[in-house]
């Protein structure tokens, strides 16, 4: 470690740190643009100027490797003058777009201009323009506006070093330098929206969020993406019950600073709530009618009890088939088991998870990690005690699915105990096949089909009882990711009445048998289940390991939470200008 003095305060930093990081470790927030702990150092923006004792000229602190005993003066007149100069230079060509720019409120240029720069502009020369490269999509998710660009190269370095796809490059030279792809190509790698995160200004913004909300109105809630089992930490950004976007939350061992486009833009789906009241189908009339929770859950209890008690000489197991889901939290899956298997003794709930397209995210600990499942929590569901039914496995569900073609003539045999009397599906969207009429008709063989649902699909059309459930933004609970890490999601939005979370639905259902207390919170369930769920025993609901880092104020500076946690692979010597990967040697 090296002992470095910053403005009189002594800090110890790793030997491979740079002066900017030493300043930040000492609590001196030196303004900067091009520096990013996961990208190579270029020292281009010239904003992070400090004085280093013994060196006559002003230095860009990110380019100065620390040395034991180094004395840095970050707040001298000379350093401030240098930053004023850089800020003035940046503002002479930067458009006055703040009123219409999405980045306002989380813009490094705005933030740094508070502390540096002159109070009045000294120039009235015409500003440079980039006709054809302003307010134009540069990819399926990213809109580029080159008039706003401050040429920091974070986006170029991201595409070159993180995704290694090299779509972006500097074009032209001198004052007319800008960033673009080669013509006709889009910025379309699977992490493309991360470039909008790292861009310190509004030069790169996302199409989905464009003009939707001013960022200072957004509330930020910790959550975890449920698109695949990687479990990227994210923050749900919302206001007045509407989810506006997801942003990645920093988590070194999972997603680092990044989030893939697929996961990020699942935010668009969360505002959809097709079912807002319970619906039940009474007797054999075709249409369901809307009802209240009391009637709906009573109907569920009646059906389940009848299935358990009917036919004294037939084992009650198998008459009720319960399906959990990898899209539910571990707590919710555990409640299913605790109620239906442990208390009501109708057998082990099962779950199925689709194989999804291969997703990936990169962090500094593991490099690339991959997700192949279409949901976040198969490991949590398994740990909670549910049976993970895979293709070819023998189980009550597979038996049911295999029986579908011959089920039409099964009227006589309630002897076929493979057809459940009650099929309780705690997540109607648990598989893509829920839209497949053949799959649904196989499930429909059950006498009573009960689902928790948010979005309409073929399965909800066929169901007898539909219980409206909240989306991810309404839930509290934990997911277990691909590396076995338990991660908590928090409730961002209290669902509009009378939608309930899956947890609440199960508590109220269980309460009818006296098994659960309807006052329990997700935390209570977590603590109750810890003893019996693998991997949960030593955890604490409030611990950092489970909760993760707080959402950052600005995605462009999301690393504030990490302190000094830089990428050891970034060379100590500042790396020369960015090049595309050379695979020859």
């Amino acid at each position, binding site marked *: 470690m090296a002992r470095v003095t910053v403005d009189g305060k002594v800090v110890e930093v790793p030997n491979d740190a740079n002066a900017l990081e030493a300043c930040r470790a000492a609590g001196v927030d030196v303004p900067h643009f091009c520096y990013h702990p996961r990208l190579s150092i270029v020292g281009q923006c010239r904003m992070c100027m400090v004085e280093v004792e013994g060196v006559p000229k002003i230095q860009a602190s990110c380019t100065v490797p620390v040395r034991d005993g180094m004395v840095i003066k970050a707040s001298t007149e000379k350093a401030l003058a240098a930053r004023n100069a850089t800020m003035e230079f940046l503002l002479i060509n930067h458009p006055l777009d703040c009123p219409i720019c999405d980045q306002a409120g989380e813009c490094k240029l705005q933030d740094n201009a508070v502390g540096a720069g002159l109070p009045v502009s000294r120039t009235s020369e015409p500003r440079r323009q*980039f*006709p*054809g*490269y*302003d*307010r*134009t*999509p*540069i*990819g*399926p998710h990213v*809109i*580029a506006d080159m008039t706003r660009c401050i040429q920091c190269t974070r986006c170029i370095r991201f595409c070159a070093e993180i995704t290694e*796809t*090299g*779509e*972006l*490059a*500097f*074009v*032209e*030279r001198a004052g007319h330098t*800008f960033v*673009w*792809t*080669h*013509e*006709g*190509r*889009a*910025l*379309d790698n699977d992490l493309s929206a991360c470039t909008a995160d790292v861009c310190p200004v509004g030069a790169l913004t996302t*199409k*989905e969020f*464009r*003009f939707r909300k001013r960022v200072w109105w957004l509330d930020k809630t910790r959550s975890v993406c449920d698109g695949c089992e990687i479990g990227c930490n994210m923050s749900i950004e919302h206001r007045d019950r509407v989810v506006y976007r997801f942003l990645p939350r920093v988590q070194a061992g999972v997603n680092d600073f990044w989030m893939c486009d697929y996961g990020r833009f699942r935010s668009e789906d969360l505002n959809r709530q097709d079912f807002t009241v319970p619906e039940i189908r009474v007797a054999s009339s075709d249409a369901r009618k809307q009802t209240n929770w009391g009637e709906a859950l009573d109907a569920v209890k009646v059906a389940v009890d009848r299935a358990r008690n009917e036919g004294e000489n037939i084992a009650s197991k198998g008459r009720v088939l319960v399906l959990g889901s990898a899209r539910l939290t571990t707590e919710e899956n555990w409640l299913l088991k605790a109620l239906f298997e442990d208390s009501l003794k109708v057998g082990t709930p099962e779950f199925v998870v689709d194989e999804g397209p291969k997703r990936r995210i990169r962090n500094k600990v593991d490099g690339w990690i991959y997700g192949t499942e279409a949901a976040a929590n198969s490991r949590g569901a398994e740990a909670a005690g549910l049976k993970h039914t895979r293709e070819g496995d023998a189980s009550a569900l597979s038996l049911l699915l295999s029986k579908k073609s011959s089920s039409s003539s099964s009227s006589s045999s309630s002897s076929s105990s493979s057809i459940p009397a009650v099929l309780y599906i705690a997540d109607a969207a648990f598989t893509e096949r829920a839209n497949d009429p053949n799959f649904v008709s196989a499930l429909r063989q059950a006498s009573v089909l009960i689902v928790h649902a948010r979005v309409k699909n073929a399965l909800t059309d066929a169901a007898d009882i539909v219980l409206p459930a909240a989306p991810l933004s309404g839930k509290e609970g934990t997911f277990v990711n691909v590396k076995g890490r338990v991660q908590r999601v928090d409730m961002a939005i209290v669902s509009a009445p009378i939608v309930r979370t899956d947890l609440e639905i199960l508590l109220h259902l269980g309460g009818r048998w006296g098994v659960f207390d309807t006052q329990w919170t997700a935390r209570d369930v977590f603590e109750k289940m810890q003893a019996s769920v693998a991997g949960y025993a030593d955890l604490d609901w409030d611990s950092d390991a489970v909760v993760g880092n707080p959402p950052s104020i600005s995605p462009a500076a999301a690393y504030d939470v990490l302190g000094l946690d830089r990428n050891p692979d970034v060379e100590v010597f500042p790396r020369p200008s960015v*090049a*595309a990967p*050379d*695979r*020859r*040697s």
Partner: protein
Amino acid sequence: MSGPQKLPVAEQAENPRVGEHGALSCGRALSFSSETRSEFERLLARYPTKQAALLPTLWLAQREWGWISREAVDYVATLLDLSPAFVWGVVTFYTMYNRAPVGKHLIQVCTSISCHLNGAGEVYTECRKRLGNLSPGETTADGKFTVVEVECLAQCDKAPAVMVDDDDHFVITKDKLDAFLESLK
């Protein structure tokens, strides 16, 4: 103000447009002739990385096709295992790679300080005027001449200096301009 846009930006096509600095298309896929390919292989052997051969390869491309088109960039990028955006970034950094077809003769007038002191500014203006009121970088209607101004050609003792294609020409003052242009035709 950018060009006319009918749709709100968020609804426009997802792929980026070609702007005024964009790589123009030459309309067909390109590849080196076999002689040029051999020359490329020989020069590749003189560098420890493929990337280092980029500038020389772009010269080969310009010699082959006269200018660097979008397809030329794609081809060179494939040859050298580089991203096309990176290659385009290099092409646009240097002034000598033509990004559009040029006239049969590229007239490059130096206007740096020593030539400026010897009247080069006027030579540049007059040259364009006499070839048909060309704007900077414009080609004559018959496709014969393109006129550009360039920075110091290192011929300051023979100011005003002019390069035409690869050839140096000296002391092209305003009164010698007519004769000079005649000699080129």
